[in-house]
Each structure stands twice: as structure tokens, then as C-alpha cells.
């Protein structure tokens, strides 16, 4: 698109490839995220001093911060994401539930708002029915969530969740939802422009998770298969579009649903680009980041819904620096690091051989995405690709991915969020 880029980096990341690859790079602070990647003023100063016109917030950190979006806009920068008003409206996840419910989107049974204290939590939990999930209203990315299967556990979960919410997000509000022990996680990619044109780019399945964070994602969802009857999928896509409209959403976003008891339930909108966006790009041919930039610059979304068609199947594997059995973090130096290459293989990574993986941020080293004509071909290609991935110096979850790919439930497309906890060792 001919755009010049400016990267911002913390001291921990100064040797990573992105710092060199950008046209310009600006240091924004020391390693702890609160002093760098969460430091709004430092990022705005970097934008100012480098002469940037637009700010892409990426995913994580400030990407869903209404305050940051507002500050970018007020300082005269184009914020590449939804309007600050939309972010503000969905910031409180408990209020967001009510907004989409009023728009006719099915939600998970739960409390109508945040609960005041553990006594009210206990009363609400009895109405909803155990097990319940305590969630921080300001939370996200699996942080600030805890499950309780009885009143004793609830007392602890409520306290833990409130504490974590306060320390991580600065607000202690917690709400409760029914906990489905083994739902499927299915989400819909949305694109919307500033002129009221909305469309969806079909679904992704992200049921394979650990600690509420995704590990493997694929498109299409095996629940639907490659060519589902329109009646089967339309309610999901309609619900996603209704949810996006309820917030006057614009730019790229993802509407997340749980599928349990033969029904879809809205969880939340991820008001940003998703980590797993490549599987949608590879199977629909839609350049999501290209559209993010065009939409943010005020251009209309010229795609029509009928043009969004899927070809083939794609699977994404998040490569984490962690123990593949216990999921413990494994920081260290990448003594050897050679991601696979080849036809149908895309590697979106942040590290190269010799880099240090620090304990300051998420353990993700990158994403291996495999694309093929069919799901079974994608699985075979993924097995070869993962087997040829050479990493030394840190532990990775590559052995886990290989176990997943060879397990009968995965091969049969029988996925749910308890998949990893029930997957046997080796």
C-alpha cells in the first residue's frame, strides 16, 4: 500500500526483528509493559516525533482501550480501530452483554450486571445454577476469570477475580455467567466501514485452549464443515452482525460465541484484529489489515457480502515458549530457531535465532499457519511443518501441537474447550 511504518519498542525488545524491519523505530520505555507498551503518553510522543499520521494498536496492550483511542484521535492521529465511542460502550463486558441482548443476540445466562459482594454473588449463583464463571467486567484475554462449582469455591473465586481485576485493570467489578464445562468456541470475523456498511467474513473455530487462551484455531469450523447449508450458519452470522451494529462498530472486529446445548451464546466482541486473523485471510482472500487501513482512512468498504466465499481449510498453531505438558512459561535465549517454510505454510513470527525470549510479555513466539484444499490435507501438511520446526534454548509447545494433530477427536473434528485437559500425555 506504499505506507511507511514506525515501530515502537521497549528495552526488552530492542533486538527483535520488527525494530529493524520498520522504516523507523522509537524506544518507548523499559521492559515492564506498564512503562512502555501500556504507556499511552510515550506512544503518542513517539507518533509525534516520528511524524506518524495513524496509529495501529495491534492486539493486546492498548488495542481495546477507549481512552487510548480517544487520546489518539484528540491528538490528531487516525486510530486504526473502532471509534472510541464503540470501545467505551463495550468496555464493560457486563454492560455489553445487556446491549447485545437488547439487540436480539442470544447471551449466556448470567447476572444482569456486576455483583456487589460475595453474598450477592452467592445468591445469583444459586439462580444461575452451578458451576458459574466469575468474570472481571474490565477483563479480557483470560485474565480475571475463575470457575466455581459450589458456594465455597465461589467465595474464593469471587475474591481472586476482584483482586486480579483491580490490579490488572484498575476496576474490581465482577459478574457471573453460567459455566459450560465443554462448549465449542466459534467466532465470526466482522468488517464495517464508517458509512454503515457491515459484512462478515465467516467463522473460525478456536476451541482448543489452555487457561482460556487459544492454542489452535481453524477455518472452517468442523462443526459446520466446508459446505454447510445456509440455514445452519445464518443464525450465527446474523447474530454477529446484530451485535456489531448494536455498538455502531466500525473497522475489523470479532464476535465470539460459545456453542453449547445446541445453541450459540454471545461472549464478547474483540474490538481489534485477532491473533488468528490469518486463517480467515487465507481461506477468504480478504486482506483484513488492508481493510483496517482503508476503513480507518475513511474509505468505504467496497466488498459485498456475496463476494465473501471460502476456499480450502486453514489451521493456525500458536507457538508458545512454554512447557508442552504443564504449560509453564519457558523464557530463555533462542539458540536455534528455524521455522518451517514451504507451499501453504505461513509463519507470522516475532523472533529470530539468537533473540532472548523475556518473561515480560505473552509467551507467543509466533504463529504457524497451514493452508490446504481440505482439512485433512492441512493436517498432514501441519504435521510435516511442525516436525521440521527447529527450536533450541527454550521449551515450546510444538510437541503438544503434534499430539493434538494425531488425536482421534481432533481428526474427527470433535472439539471443545476441555480438549486439552482431556488429551492424554504423549
Amino acid at each position, binding site marked *: 500500500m506504499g505506507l511507511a511504518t514506525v515501530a515502537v519498542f521497549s528495552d526488552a525488545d530492542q533486538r527483535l526483528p520488527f525494530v529493524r524491519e520498520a522504516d523507523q523505530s522509537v524506544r518507548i520505555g523499559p*521492559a*515492564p509493559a506498564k512503562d512502555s507498551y501500556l504507556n499511552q503518553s510515550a506512544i503518542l510522543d513517539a507518533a509525534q516525533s516520528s511524524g506518524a499520521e495513524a496509529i495501529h494498536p495491534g492486539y493486546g496492550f492498548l488495542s481495546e482501550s477507549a481512552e487510548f483511542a480517544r487520546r489518539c484521535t484528540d491528538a490528531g492521529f487516525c486510530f486504526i480501530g473502532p471509534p472510541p465511542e464503540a470501545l467505551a460502550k463495550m468496555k464493560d463486558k457486563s454492560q455489553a452483554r445487556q446491549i447485545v441482548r437488547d439487540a436480539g443476540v442470544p447471551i449466556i445466562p448470567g447476572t444482569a450486571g456486576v455483583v456487589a459482594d460475595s453474598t450477592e454473588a452467592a445468591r445469583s449463583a444459586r439462580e444461575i445454577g452451578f458451576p458459574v464463571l466469575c468474570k472481571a467486567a474490565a477483563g479480557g*484475554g483470560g*485474565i480475571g476469570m475463575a470457575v466455581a462449582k459450589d458456594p465455597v469455591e465461589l467465595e474464593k473465586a469471587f475474591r481472586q477475580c476482584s483482586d486480579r481485576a483491580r*490490579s490488572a485493570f484498575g476496576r474490581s467489578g465482577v459478574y457471573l455467567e453460567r459455566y459450560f464445562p465443554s462448549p465449542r468456541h466459534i467466532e465470526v470475523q466482522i468488517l464495517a466501514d464508517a458509512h454503515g456498511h457491515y459484512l462478515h467474513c465467516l467463522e473460525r473455530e478456536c476451541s482448543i485452549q489452555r*487457561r482460556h487462551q487459544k492454542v489452535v484455531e481453524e477455518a472452517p469450523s468442523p462443526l459446520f464443515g466446508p459446505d454447510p447449508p445456509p440455514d445452519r450458519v445464518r443464525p450465527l452470522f446474523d447474530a454477529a452482525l446484530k451485535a456489531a451494529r448494536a455498538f455502531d462498530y466500525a473497522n475489523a472486529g470479532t464476535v465470539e460465541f460459545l456453542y453449547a446445548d445446541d445453541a450459540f451464546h454471545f461472549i464478547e466482541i474483540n474490538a481489534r484484529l485477532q491473533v488468528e486473523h490469518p486463517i480467515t485471510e487465507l481461506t477468504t482472500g480478504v486482506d483484513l489489515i488492508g481493510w483496517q487501513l482503508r476503513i480507518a482512512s475513511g474509505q468505504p468498504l467496497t466488498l459485498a457480502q456475496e463476494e465473501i466465499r471460502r476456499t480450502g481449510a486453514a489451521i493456525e498453531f500458536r507457538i508458545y*515458549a*512454554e512447557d508442552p505438558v504443564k*504449560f*509453564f*512459561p519457558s*523464557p530463555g535465549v533462542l539458540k536455534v530457531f528455524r521455522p518451517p517454510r514451504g507451499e501453504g505454510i505461513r509463519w507470522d513470527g516475532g523472533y529470530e535465532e539468537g533473540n532472548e525470549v523475556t*518473561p*515480560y*510479555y*505473552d*509467551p507467543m513466539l509466533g504463529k504457524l499457519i497451514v493452508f490446504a484444499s481440505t482439512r485433512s490435507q492441512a493436517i498432514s501438511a501441519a504435521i510435516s511443518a511442525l516436525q521440521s520446526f527447529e527450536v533450541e534454548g527454550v521449551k515450546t509447545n510444538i510437541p503438544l501441537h503434534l499430539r493434538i494433530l494425531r488425536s482421534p477427536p481432533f481428526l474427527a473434528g470433535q472439539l471443545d474447550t476441555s480438549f486439552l485437559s482431556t488429551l492424554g500425555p504423549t
Partner: protein
Amino acid sequence: MADVPAHITGTVWKIEVALGQAVSPGETLVILESMKMEMPVEAPEGGVVKEIRCKESQPVKEGDVLVVIG
């Protein structure tokens, strides 16, 4: 006496005990944060907290002694 080390490189998120406090085996002394994950450091044996050798939000390396129990 037992030196209780960090079992992982990370940052001290919370110190759960105070100097002079009696602790039982398995009790959480410190919570470390590494790569967005909280990892409790537990007392290997019972005793009294003799020394606290870390501060909240301090970066620590695997093997650094965090607490001494005696």
C-alpha cells in the same frame, strides 16, 4: 532453615507473607508473574518467615532466593 528460590524467571507480583509470620508446608509465600501467568511459590516446609529478599514488581531470575524460612 530453608531458602526458597524462584522456580522461574519473572517478576514478583505479590508477597503473601510478612516477616515473622508462621507458615505451614505448601502455603503460598510469593506469587511470581512470568509471561502473563501467575505462579505461586510455596513453602517447602513449615516454619517462620526469617527473611524476605524480594520486593513487589522486582524482576527475579530462576534460582534467586525470595524468602528464607526457619
